[in-house]
């Protein structure tokens, strides 16, 4: 399989994830989109690792996954606490930092 294909898939996945972050209003969905972006990056890294015959890309993927997991933990905790306060987690309504 040509490396370009993997890269293309990775790019498409990233793009879909980015759109999801920008357009969706539910924070859980935004987080899923962020995960999608991270996984797209992982795919790209592994593709390059194979293409350049180097292990570093694959090792770096582990780092990315760890960070993603930690970040999700924190993010979900925040969302849960917001839900507990407001009963509503639409990001458009979370604008008290305005001005």
């Amino acid at each position, binding site marked *: 399989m040509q490396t370009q294909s993997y890269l293309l898939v990775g790019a498409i996945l990233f793009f879909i994830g*980015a759109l999801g*972050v*920008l357009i969706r209003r539910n924070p859980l969905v935004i987080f899923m989109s962020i995960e999608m972006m991270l996984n797209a990056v992982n795919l790209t890294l592994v593709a390059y690792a194979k293409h350049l015959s180097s292990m570093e890309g694959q090792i770096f993927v582990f780092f990315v996954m760890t960070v993603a997991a930690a970040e999700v933990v924190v993010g979900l905790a925040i969302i849960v606490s917001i839900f507990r306060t407001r009963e509503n987690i639409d*990001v458009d309504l*979370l604008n008290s930092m*305005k001005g």
Partner: protein
Amino acid sequence: MQNYAWTLLALPMLGFVITGGLGRRLPRTLTGAIGSGVIGVAFLVALAIFLQVRGQTGQHTYNDLHYYNWLDAGSFHVGMNLLVDPLTCVMLLIVTGVGFLIHVYSIGYMAHDANFSRFFSYLNLFIFSMLLLVLADNYLILIIGWGMVGLSSYLLIGFWFDRPSAVAAARKAFVMNVIGDVGMMIAGYMMFVQFGTLGYDGVFSKAQSMKPDSALLNVICLMLLVGAVAKSAQIPLYTWLPDAMEGPTSVSALIHAATMVTAGVYLLARSHVLYLLAPFTLSLVAIIGAVGAIYAASIALVQTDIKRVLAYSTMSQIAYMFLGCGVGAFGAGMFHLMTHAFFKAVLFLGAGSVIHALLNEQDLRKMGGLRDKLPRTYLLMGIGCLAISGIPPLSGFFSKDEILGRVLAAGNWYIILWILGVITAGMTAFYMFRLFFLTFHGRYNGPPDVYELAHEAPNVMVVPVGILGVLSIVGGFVQTPWGWNAFDDFLAPVFSRYPLVHAAKAPLVGNVPALIFIVVVALAGIYVAYVMYGGAERRPYRAPEWLYNLLYNKYYVDEIYDAGIVQPVRATASALYSLVDRSGVDAAVNGVARLVAVVSRGVSPVETGYVRTYALSIFAGIVLVALVPVVFGTLLK
């Protein structure tokens, strides 16, 4: 001498610190004792130094004591050096001696004042400053001392600061002194530019190599003269002195009679080399002296406040000293400085006793008949009045007549100045005895209950005046016209140090007829005063209304200065305030603040609070950052 000359400065500073810092918590007797004690010890040190210098001969009397290098800026060096030579010794003895006596007097005079310790701390500060001025061996330290005595004067005139008149008088004195300070500083700058140094020795040696009567030297001397005129209350910067009488009488005696106002004369004597090389300015000094003497005497003739009469008399006597210096007789000027310190202190302190006895009455028209109530003050004031009138054998006669004798010996047009001086002597005798008779003879003209309570001053006040009275009697015998030249001989090394200049050395075997004439004029003045004021009924001379008003209002000079100088300066300051300060600087500063606020309010809509907007801008930024190198890369290819 190296080892202990610095104590002359350390002692008053110590007194200042102790009485200023701890005075409130100490009992009054202790504060007074410390304040006076340090000056007393300083006097003993001065006496020791004097005896040591007297034992030295010729140029060994010039003791330049180097303590440390104070200022080192490239080629400009100023050391913290003290100069002890005969001229310094004279001033040291006067300042510490008369100063000590006045300190002791003040223990009694200020006994009922709430701010007793503050008074003594200021007095000690003054003595420190004056000694610094006198001991300096370069013009920079002199100017520092000059400024500090001006400060002390301000603090002491405005001592009773809850009185608006005292505050105004203090401010006036300080402002006029600052004008003099500016003159001194300009002279200092010019000296540095011309001579490269500010030390006396350097300046005087280098000055001799300038061409005689050069314009530059004349300007330097003129600027120094501005300083001297301001400090010594001569024309045209004298109007602060009568107002300075708002301060306590000890202050008037110490600062405005015996010491500070004589600093100008000391400056002239110290800078005699420069003045003798600039004869034009020197003759100006003589003219200011002669004119000032008769001018001040004329005002004193009609004043009704006892201290103001003495203030104008001080101005007049210092004018005599200027006159003496102006004809090159610097020694004579210093001699009169010394005797004047004695008898003027007697007069002021005696007046203080009178004021104290009459519960702060100072108006001559409300005095009279105090001879029996204040017998010792009567005697001492009498001595002071005789001395200032120049009646032999009291000290004033010898010093005043030496000056007038030298003026006459100068010849040419100086005889006009001599005539002015003689007329002034007559007027001096008249107005001093007018003061004397109005205070002590005749009938008492004030409230009767005050007269009942009037009593002689306590010993702590009378004894110092007594000592000064004795000095006023015998102080003249150091320099008589009949060959006893101890004073001039003592000062001779100072005035012959720089070979190119010769101070007036005309022997004063002098003009006996002139001497007798002056004494006769003085006696005539006393007689006229006696006729007019001596008896039970007063018979003042009815002068024309306009003349009386002119003299009583001091020739309206205060009003002229106010209209001509003070008000325009005030108006300019006010205009600058509203135009430059308020509309300009404040507007700029406030404008900047407002600009910041406006910009920030304009920019703040960027923070929408929506996370999605922020996310969008992050992405936009990333895209830009990614795109830019690619675009530029292809463009550059």
